[in-house]
C-alpha cells in the first residue's frame, strides 16, 4: 500500500514535458500516464466545442494519435503540453466542423448529470439552465466559443488560452468579453437571462 502510494507520488512528480521525452524513447507507460492526465481536458474541450460526445471521443483519439506521431514537434518553450494538446484539439474540431457542416446537437447527458443532485423542481430548472447555457455557447461563433470554453469552462489562464489559440492575450480578452456579452443577450432573449429584471444592461454614459 505504502509502496503504491510512493510510486504514485513519484509518477505525479514527473512533469508532462518529462513524460513526453520519456515517451519519445518508446516508453508506453509514459504515454499512458500522459493520456490519463490530459484526456479529460481534451475531451471536455471537444465536447464543449461540438456538443457531441461521439465527435469529442474521435477528437480525443486523434489528438493523442498526433501526440504519438509528432511528439518531437512539441517545444516546451512555446507552452505547456496541455496547451499543445488543446491546440491540436482545436484544429481538429474546427476542421471537422468545417468539413462535416456539423449540426450542433445538445448532449442530453450534460443535463442528466445535473439531475442526480437536487429535488425534482430544482433539478428541472437547473437542468434547463445548463442546457440553455450549453446551447447558447454552442451557437456562438467558433472564435468566441473557444474563448469561453478555454477561459470559463476549462479555467485556463489568459496566457495559456492565448497559447492554445495562437493569438495575443489582448485579442483573447476582447473575444471573451464580446462572447459573454452575446451570451447574456441571447439568454435574455430566450427568457433565461441571468438577470431578468433589468431591461437593458448596457450604457455608454
Amino acid at each position, binding site marked *: 500500500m505504502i509502496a503504491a502510494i510512493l510510486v504514485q507520488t513519484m509518477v505525479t512528480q514527473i512533469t508532462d514535458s518529462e513524460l513526453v521525452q520519456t515517451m*519519445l*524513447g*518508446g*516508453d*508506453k507507460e509514459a*504515454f*499512458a500516464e500522459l*493520456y*490519463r492526465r490530459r*484526456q*479529460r481536458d*481534451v*475531451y*471536455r474541450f471537444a*465536447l*464543449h466545442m461540438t456538443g457531441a460526445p461521439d465527435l*469529442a*471521443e474521435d477528437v*480525443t*483519439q486523434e489528438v*493523442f*494519435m498526433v501526440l*504519438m*506521431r509528432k511528439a518531437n514537434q512539441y517545444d516546451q518553450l512555446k507552452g505547456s503540453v496541455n496547451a499543445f494538446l488543446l491546440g491540436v484539439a482545436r484544429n481538429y474540431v474546427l476542421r471537422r466542423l468545417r468539413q462535416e457542416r456539423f449540426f450542433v446537437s445538445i448532449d442530453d447527458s*450534460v443535463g442528466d*448529470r*445535473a439531475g442526480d443532485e437536487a429535488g425534482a423542481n430544482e433539478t428541472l430548472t*437547473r437542468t434547463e*439552465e*445548463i442546457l440553455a*447555457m*450549453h446551447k447558447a*455557447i454552442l451557437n456562438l461563433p467558433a472564435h468566441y466559443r473557444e474563448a*469561453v470554453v478555454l*477561459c*470559463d*469552462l*476549462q*479555467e485556463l489562464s489568459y496566457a495559456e488560452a492565448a497559447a492554445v489559440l495562437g493569438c495575443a492575450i489582448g485579442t483573447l*480578452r476582447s473575444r*471573451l*468579453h464580446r462572447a*459573454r456579452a452575446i*451570451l*447574456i443577450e441571447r439568454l435574455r432573449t430566450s427568457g433565461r*437571462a*441571468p*438577470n431578468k*429584471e*433589468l431591461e*437593458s*444592461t*448596457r*450604457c*455608454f*454614459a
Partner: protein
Amino acid sequence: MNCQNFEEVVTEIAREQIIDAGARAEALRHSDVCEPCAGRLEDERAMTLSLRGLAENTASAGAPARVESRLLAAFDELALTQFPALPVSAGRYRRQYFIGAIAAGLLLVFGLSAIRWRQSVPLTQEIGTPLAADTGSRSSTPMVTTFTPPIIKKNLTDSRGSRRKSSTRPKGGASAKTKPANTDHTEIATDFIPVIYGGAVNLAEGGRMVRVQLPRLAMASFGLPVHMDRANEKVKADVLVGVDGLAQAIRFVQ
C-alpha cells in the same frame, strides 16, 4: 470612472481575475452610483456562476475507456516502426534480455576457451630452440625471454621436447602430423646481436622470434665476416621482435 471604463474591467471583476486594486475600487464605486452598470455587473456575475455550474457539471466527463485501449494498441503498433531502437513492452524486454544473455554466455565460453588454450602453450621458450620449417605459423606464440642464448645449439629433431612443442599447438590437418622440414639438419647460430642502437634487449613483456632470410652481405652490418664471393647468397636469421613490433635482436643461422 465612466461607463466605458467600467465596461473594460467588468468581465475581469465578475470573473474575479486579478486586476489593479485601484481600478477595481473605482469600478465598484461607479456601479454603486450607476444603475445600468450595476445591472451589467450583476449580469456578468450571474454569467460567471452559470458557466461555473456548467463546468462543474461536465467536470467528470472524459473519453471512454475504449479510447485508451485503442490508443495503447496503436502505440504498440507504432512503436515497432517509430521507436525501433527501444523496447516498448515487457515481452520485448524479455526477448532482448534473453538474446543478450545467450550472447554473453557464448562470449564467456569462447573467452574461457581462448584463455585455456593460451595457458596450454608454454609461456617461455628457449631462445636457442631451433624453429621448424613452419615457424611462421608459430611466430605469434608469446614468449617471455630468458635471454641466455647459446652460441651454437644442435637441433635434435626427434627429441621428446620437440614433439611436445609441436603438440602444444594444433596446426590442423596433415601439416600437423608431417615432420618439420629441417629434421635432418643441424643448425649453427651466432649469438643474438642487439639491433637497437645503445639499447638493451628487453623482452620482459614478451616477444616473438621470426625466421627470415637476408642477403649474406647483411652480416657485415653486424661486424661478422662475409666472403665477398658469396655476398649475394641468402642466409637465414632469427629476429627477436618485441611486443611493440620493433626488432630487438638478430642471430644468423646456418
